[in-house]
Each structure stands twice: as structure tokens, then as C-alpha cells.
């Protein structure tokens, strides 16, 4: 269990435990802390749930993920996470001097595995990630979608139960994005994890998540939560013809438009 120092003394937990719980979180930046990125943010993610966070750009989505990942500390409020987190940053951040296999293996090396063992274990998953034959390719030789899959593999390899994904498909063209969304939905169906997914794409949020939290513009806080009571995994082409799906997307867009 991982509790950040600001968390208050632990009370007995309720029966249904949240994997992630943020209470009254505030985070400020800048000289004399004048930029308030997040204020009064409450959020819960249950075990095995996929929660999507949408919000306008600059509203503090990346900050929120880094708080949960323990890379930043809140200025007020508490952040508590049960279980280890795997954080996938907004940019793929592949090391240009390592090949694709070496980049994926990095996560295992950091856990103390030897270079060769790490490469072997990462290599076993390359085909499943659609990366077969590209083990020795340098990041500069990979397409955007492949780079993203290598970054995914690096995130998933340590086997941590909580996934924190920061706009994982934001940099991809729309065709690649659609296929990667389908791939992630399938991967999560095959191997469920608790997921906190940040995106600025409302359709993507409703497509992938069990629940969508909408953030206000800066300072970010949750202004609406939408339950997506549709079976996962969902295929985009089916979802687009589903009135329930379309209605949810419209409601989320309405909330965003009011906040802006």
C-alpha cells in the first residue's frame, strides 16, 4: 500500500475499497504559488474500474496523474493509492539510443533484472503488441503507433495493478488512434486492471471507460461524473450507431461547454 505523506491518519476502510482516492486536492505552481492547477478535487476509482478524466487543455489533467503516481505532492488535501502504479506519460519518451526491445525492457531493468533477462521477457510479448520483427528498430525508425505500443509495453511489463495513462493516443492520427483504442479495449478485457485514463477526447473517454469524470477549466475540479453502462470492450463503429453512446458523448460535451 502506498499512502502519500499528506494523507490523514487512516480510518478503518469501508468494505468496498477504492484503489485510488483523492480528497479536496489542491496543487499550485509558479512563483509564490499563484497558478492554481487543481482545487477542491475529489475523485475515486474502484478496483478493476476504468475511469476516464476529460477536460480542456491546461486544466490540470497531467498534474492529477502525477499526483496519483506519487511524482508530485498535493499542496492541500490527500491522495491515497492502494497498490503500485504504472504511469505512462503524455509523450512516449523512448530513449533514442536504445532499440525498441531495450526501451520496453527498461522497466524491468529498473526492477533489478539483468539486461539480457529483461530483454528476453519483454521480447516474449512483442508479437502480442503488434511489434514482431521490430525488436532491433530504433525509435526513430518506428511509426507513431508503434512507438506508443512500445511505451505501453514498458508501462505494463512491471505488472503493476493500477494504470495511469496520460492522453495515450493524443499524438496519433485518427486512423491509428481508432485502431489503438480498439487494441487497448481488447487488452483491458483480456487482462483487467484499474485504469485512470486522461484524455481531451470525449468520444474516446466514453468509448473506453466505465465512468467519465469531467474537469472544469483551471483550477480543475470534477464538475460532472457520467456512468457509462455499456458492456466493454466496445467497438467504435458499433458505438457510433448506439443512441445511448451518442447521448453520453453529447452530455459530456454539454458539461464541457458550460464550464468553458
Amino acid at each position, binding site marked *: 500500500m502506498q499512502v502519500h505523506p499528506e494523507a490523514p491518519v487512516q480510518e478503518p476502510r469501508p468494505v468496498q475499497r477504492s484503489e485510488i482516492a483523492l480528497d479536496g486536492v489542491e496543487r499550485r505552481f509558479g512563483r509564490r504559488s499563484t497558478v492554481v492547477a487543481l482545487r477542491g478535487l475529489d475523485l475515486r476509482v474502484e478496483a478493476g474500474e476504468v475511469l476516464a478524466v476529460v477536460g480542456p487543455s491546461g486544466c490540470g489533467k497531467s498534474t492529477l496523474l502525477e499526483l496519483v503516481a506519487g*511524482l508530485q505532492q498535493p499542496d492541500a488535501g490527500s491522495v491515497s493509492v492502494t497498490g503500485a502504479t*504504472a504511469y505512462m506519460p503524455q509523450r512516449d519518451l523512448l530513449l533514442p*539510443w536504445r532499440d525498441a526491445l531495450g526501451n520496453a525492457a527498461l522497466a524491468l531493468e*529498473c526492477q533489478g533484472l539483468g539486461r539480457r533477462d529483461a530483454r528476453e521477457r519483454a521480447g516474449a510479448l512483442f508479437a502480442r503488441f503488434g511489434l514482431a520483427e521490430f525488436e532491433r528498430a530504433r525509435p*526513430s525508425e518506428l511509426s507513431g503507433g508503434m512507438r506508443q505500443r512500445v511505451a505501453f509495453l514498458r508501462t505494463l511489463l512491471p505488472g503493476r495493478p493500477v494504470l495511469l495513462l496520460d492522453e495515450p493516443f493524443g499524438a496519433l492520427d485518427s486512423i491509428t488512434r481508432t485502431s489503438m483504442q480498439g487494441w487497448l479495449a481488447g487488452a483491458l478485457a483480456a487482462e483487467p486492471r484499474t485504469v485512470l485514463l486522461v484524455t481531451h477526447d470525449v468520444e474516446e473517454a466514453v468509448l473506453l471507460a466505465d465512468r467519465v469524470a469531467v474537469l472544469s477549466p483551471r483550477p480543475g475540479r470534477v464538475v460532472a461524473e457520467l456512468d457509462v453502462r455499456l458492456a466493454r470492450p466496445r467497438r467504435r463503429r458499433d458505438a457510433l450507431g448506439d443512441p445511448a453512446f451518442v447521448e453520453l458523448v453529447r452530455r459530456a460535451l454539454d458539461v464541457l461547454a458550460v464550464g468553458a
Partner: protein
Amino acid sequence: MRTFPRVALATLLLALVLAAWQGVASLDSVDDLTLASPAETATALSDDWSLLMDNAWVTLEEVLLGLAIAVVAGAVLAVAMHLWQPLRDAAYPLLIASQAIPIVVLAPIFVLAFDYGMGPKLAIVALICFFPITVNVLDGLRSTPAELLKLMRSLGASRLQTLRKVELPAALPSFFTGLRVAASVSVIGAVFGEWAGADEGLGRLVLLANNQLQTPRAYAGIVLLTLMAVALFALATIADRLLCPWNREEAKA
């Protein structure tokens, strides 16, 4: 990259310089003893070849060993300064001060303190080369993107793992920048060292030939010293391209 026009232009420029040099040296008013022509220099190169080579090896050895000392000491100090802030704050002014010392004056003192042998020359070459290497490695280590450091923290990497797997590779191109600068000044260091007192080496040969009015031989020595510095610079550049291919790929992208 259009290599051919570049090579052609460089060759043309070199030919122009040589022609001008030959022209001036051939003027009646110019004494053969003050200025040797390219042709005379070439003759001296072939006549004195074995003498020149024997001395060139000595100088090359001083340069390479001095460079090696500077690389090891500079890289170690840079890493230590990077890992430990108090050392960085304390050592930086000293590092700058070490560059303010006029090497020309220092050389005879070194020779006096040690002897006529290899020691003082290595010390001087290393002292000259140490600064560009330390400063560039330190700079490279410190300019590792903050996002990469954050990524390593999220992967649970230790300080040493982050250093080995991210910061050191990221600093490699900077190291080679430093090595190129060091390579081009290293030969000057060896020559200063030899001038202060030596019984062999190209620098000493040039000085001796000059005193004995064997101007073409002195010129031949200078040509070899220049070639040595250029070759070292080129080697550092080639090593850079072989070991950091990503650096050029990224610049292109």
C-alpha cells in the same frame, strides 16, 4: 548532404593557400631562411622522413596519454560534481581558475619540478584537455530532459540506475563535443611541454631546426603537428557518429 562540392571547395581553398605561399616564398626579396616554400617543405618532409617520424611518435604518445588522463579524470570529476551539489559549487570556480593559468609559463615550472621525461608533458596536455571535457560532460549530464528523469522515477529506478541508463548516454554527445575541443588543443599542450625542456619530440625538433636555421625542416615539423591535431579531431568526430547515431537522426527529424 552534398559532400562532393564541399570537398572540392576545401581542396580548391587549400590549393590557393599553397599557391600564395609558394608565390610569396619565391619572391626575390624574401630570404630562404625566413620563409621556406611549400616545395622546400615537401623536400624536407621526404629527406628527413625517418627523423621526423621518430619524433612524431614521441609527441603522439604524449598527446594520447595526456588526453586519456584528461578523459578519465574529467569524466569522473564531472559525474562526481553532478551527483554531489556541494562539490559542484566548490569545484566550479577552481575549474575556471585552472583555465586562467597561462600554460606557457606553467610548462617550465612543471619541467623544473619533474624532469625532462614524459611526466611534465602529460601533465600539461592533461591540464589543457581536462577543462573542455569536464565542462561538457557536466553540461550534458545536467541537461538530461526533466521528463526522462520523471519517467525513471515512475519506474522505480535508483539514482545509480538513472545515471547509468539515462544521464550518461544522454551526455555522450556532449562528451564528444568536449573531446573534439580537447583533441584540437592537445597538440599545442605537448609542444609547450617540449619547448620547456625535452630531448625528443616534434615540438623540440621544430624549435631546434628553427635555431639552426633549417627552416624547411621546421616547416615540415609544423605540417606534421597540424596533421596530427586534425587527425585527432577527425577521429573524435568519427567516434561520435559511430557511438551516437541517434544524435544526428534526431537533428534531422
